[in-house]
């Protein structure tokens, strides 16, 4: 089992199910549990971004998550048919700001970029496609 795909409506209620999808893939592929964090976190951050930014037209977008295991690592791709939105265009938060000056948002995408080896965004037709790859030591 090297590749899996699932699709849900962009509704926060589906986050738990998507996390289970990832965990099942992880277990079935015999990947080390200690290295699941970047993918669990990226799935939550990216999916919740789509949920929050993607409902511009009223209806929740459709979100497709695929996992592909190859020699260079695991690639997780999140695609949605919501309004064009490139999360990588967001300015990075100031992680040196003091307690009082720290903005309460904007950390999600920053954490994903820090944890993954490669992150890329493309608008493909009417869809946003965010791909994230990280090597998994085994």
């Amino acid at each position, binding site marked *: 089992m090297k590749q899996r795909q699932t699709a849900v409506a962009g509704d926060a209620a589906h986050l738990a199910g998507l996390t289970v999808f990832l965990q099942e893939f992880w277990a079935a592929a015999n990947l080390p549990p200690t290295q699941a964090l970047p993918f669990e*976190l990226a799935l*939550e951050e990216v999916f919740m971004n789509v949920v929050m930014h993607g409902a511009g037209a009223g209806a929740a977008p459709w979100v497709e998550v695929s996992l592909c295991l190859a020699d260079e690592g695991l690639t997780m791709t999140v695609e949605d048919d919501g309004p064009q939105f490139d999360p990588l265009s967001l300015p990075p938060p100031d992680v040196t700001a003091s*307690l009082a000056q720290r903005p*309460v948002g904007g950390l999600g995408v920053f954490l994903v970029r820090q944890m993954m080896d490669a992150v890329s965004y493309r608008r493909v037709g009417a869809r946003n496609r965010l791909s994230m790859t990280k090597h998994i030591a085994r």
Partner: protein
Amino acid sequence: MNIQLETLGQTTLVMPQGRLDFGSAPVFQQRLEQLLAGGGTAPAALIIDCAGLDYVSSAGLRVFLLAARAAQRAGTAFAVCSLKPPVREVFDLSGFARIISVHADRDSAFAHLQPGRA
């Protein structure tokens, strides 16, 4: 998410268990807001003991940030301890370990919060 509380003298210990994500963050935030509400009922010190916390996302970090600020307003000394590696990694990457008092275990958190030494 299950949240346990323990009171030791003037210090309240909060022990979140499981995953702190978008789903559970509001519950945790509400619990901490209740504890740190003004009106003179806030404890002298509050320690969040993360020994049972397996995962934290940006939604969870946000709760820690808001709690640290609420504690400051309430005059409550605030510290976090016993972070598991996945939680520690998220704290370090986000720079939170620099703005929130983070300790290896409960004892060192207590030592740090001793009146006159905090």
